[in-house]
């Protein structure tokens, strides 16, 4: 059942690098990450690649396989033919550190810029009451494993380095939407989304949703509703007032 696969892996660092060809044994049921680990153990002990859970839960092993952003641990070798050359390259939207490892600090910086959760006080008995139906919308976004594949594929991030300053990317626009839909959060997040994190730059191509390994409908369920709320509020005079005085939820 084993066979020899042809793997082409990008190796190098910030100064440059290139694709290298390898022939590696593949056994039944293995994923691309297994094959890279076999490379490390037998041919290239210093091949740099991130991983942790090997089960699609931690979002560490993001890379591009045949040009598509994927999790290495969830991409089965069985999805390729045995004679196909499989090309593995680092995420292209972020600077390379070494081999398949990129510098994803952009994402951590954006996360830090989002105004923190600020809840209403607890109820008299010390609890927070929320209905399941109200928590389900933001819960969908909290499934995010921060693999940053959506950030990698979004053309606003990918194609224009300059945009990174003013655009948080789908993952973090979704985080703002999540807080906006959070039953306990009290801040008005529409201005921040629009003016500081570039919600308006998203032109709803849905590429982000397509690559999300968690199947989160980023565009339909987070970004579009958030855009609608921004637009609604702009035209309703009463929320103008509320916004100026209290910055409460509109």
């Amino acid at each position, binding site marked *: 059942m084993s066979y020899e696969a042809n793997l082409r892996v990008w190796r190098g*660092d910030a100064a440059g690098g290139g694709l290298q060809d390898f022939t590696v044994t593949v*056994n*039944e*049921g*293995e*994923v691309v990450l*297994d094959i890279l680990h076999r490379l*490390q*153990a037998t041919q290239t*002990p*210093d*091949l*740099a*690649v*991130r*991983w*942790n*859970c*090997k*089960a*699609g*839960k*931690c*979002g*560490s092993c993001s890379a591009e396989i045949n040009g598509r952003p994927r999790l290495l641990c*969830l991409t*089965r070798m069985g999805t390729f033919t045995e004679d196909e050359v499989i090309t593995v390259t680092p995420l292209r939207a972020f600077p390379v*550190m*070494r*081999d398949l*490892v990129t*510098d*994803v600090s952009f994402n*951590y910086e954006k*996360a*830090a810029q989002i105004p*923190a*959760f600020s*809840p209403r006080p*607890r109820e008299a008995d*010390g*609890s*927070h*009451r*929320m*209905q*399941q139906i109200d*928590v389900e919308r*933001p*819960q969908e976004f*909290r*499934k*995010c*494993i*921060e693999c940053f594949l959506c950030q990698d594929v979004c053309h606003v991030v990918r194609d224009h380095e300059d945009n990174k300053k003013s655009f948080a990317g789908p993952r973090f626009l979704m985080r703002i939407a999540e*807080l906006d839909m*959070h039953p*306990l*959060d009290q801040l008005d997040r529409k201005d921040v989304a629009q003016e500081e994190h570039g919600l308006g730059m998203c032109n709803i191509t849905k590429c982000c949703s397509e690559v999300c390994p968690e199947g989160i409908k980023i565009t339909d369920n987070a970004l579009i509703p958030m855009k609608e709320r921004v637009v609604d509020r702009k035209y309703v005079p009463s929320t103008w007032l509320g916004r100026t005085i209290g910055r409460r939820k509109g």
Partner: protein
Amino acid sequence: MTDLERHDYDVVVIGAGGAGLRAAIEAHEQGARTAVVCKSLLGKAHTVMAEGGIAAAMGNVYKEDGWKVHFRDTMRGGKMLNHWRMAQLHAQEAPDRVRELEDWGALFDRTPDGLISQRDFGGHRFARLAHVGDRTGLELIRTLQQQTVALGIDVYMECTVTKLLTAADGSISGAFGYFRESGRFLALQAPSVVLATGGIGKSYKVTSNSWEYTGDGHSLALAAGATLVNMEFVQFHPTGMVWPPSVRGILVTESVRGDGGVLKNSSGNRFMFDYIPDYFRKETAETEEEADRWYTDKTNNRRPPELLPRDEVARAINSEVKAGRGSPHGGVFLDIASRRDADYIRKRLPSMYHQFKELAEVDITAEAMEVGPTCHYVMGGVEVDPETAAAAVPGLYAAGEVAGGMHGSNRLGGNSLSDLLVFGRRAGTAAAAHAATTSAAALPEAALQEAEAAALAPFQRGGGENPYTIHAELQETMNELVGIIRTESEVSQALKQIEELKVRAKALTVQGERRYNPGWHLALDLPNMLRVSEAIARAALERQESRGGHTRDDFPGPSDEWAKINVICTQDGDGIALSRKPLPVMPPELAEIFEESA
């Protein structure tokens, strides 16, 4: 040392899982200048993988639940070897620790009246686990991560600590490590260090644990002069994936059983009914009918034997497979498909559904899963004071999986996440208080140089083996000889092999350069794995009884004498020394809880 980056803090927390982040948040709130160091990116620690939930007797689903019941379940699950005071504090404080997560943004599943919902898990008398589908660990770590970021706590990501630094009087003065990205070195000076480094599973071949679980904290603590308690107790989770081989060991959450899944052997029998130990007979259903009724009426029925504590279930599966009644790939069947409808399964167990679909091409709503035991958790760990999480070395604290005592000989599911929060917070408080009254001694320059030389040594040696080979052999040894069932001759054999591996590890060679070099990282993790494996094997040889996560084929039952003894490990030169210590005795008012229900 020109490429040594230096910083100065009050509290340095090593580890950014649930325990580390909770400790850091607390230390920061107590006014301490706090830093967190972690081997992976922030948010990727093991805690992210936890599935089932956080055990806390909030009484949202069953009013009858309370800390005493939780305390009792925890102690009985641990076969009474737990440190009673840790188990008590844990049961008492867990509900508050869960509630405060909501103040920081966590969104748990709800009960019909809007409170935090709670689910059933093995060994817990009542439905008690706060949860979010089957991705509770993700919710926990993301919430703590976001709070850590909101508070502006310094985080050193992808940075591995290789040595704790101590002053002349033996107290903590800081930590030394390297950045994975650059291979450059880092020294953090601090009077308080909190170890929150998690577990040891990477010393075993079949494990649910990630590459991070190399027992660093256990090993760092030993090297700094601290003690480990009861290292022989390693939990083999009964249900890991067994097929295909590349995913062998990946966890299948206990919630599958909590939500109605049952275990069957090759002839379709629910074999767990044949393995109910006397100790749990009174509280376990005798018939399938009673077991099935329990899911909807817990007051009048007893729990299904599939939900016995993990050590019981893991041993039963092991016996079925050995008796030739296993599944095609050497496990048994875990069946929820024939018992619950597809929508329910997808809703309650979304990530299990996903995991089997993606990794094994199995649709768990249509067919049974194949499962078998996998090395999952270490109950043994750094010996700490229950109130403060302080280790034997002044200024050193330990919380979470790296700490010992809380879970006795076997941990109940869901009790780890709550443990992280309860003792993470306590460690943070105590570490900050210690720092407020102590200033860190200057870092010992000689020790820094020594640590740097030790880290670089594998590059300088030529002609040695590669670390991957040695690691694979260690995993094989631990799996085969110090696994779920142990004997004197096998464990002795393991110790001999570990000695040989220690010698080989000292001569290994690393290729390439210092920047993001996984071979080098493994080479530096290996001594930790070897040291911890030796501690486990020595303790396993010492304890001549079977209890919880330690089963000796040559001493099949629990012994009254060993019921009162903790096995303590210390470092002795290049090896491990053992001693015995009496188990702390429970005060009468707590002991009564067990008499009432016996």
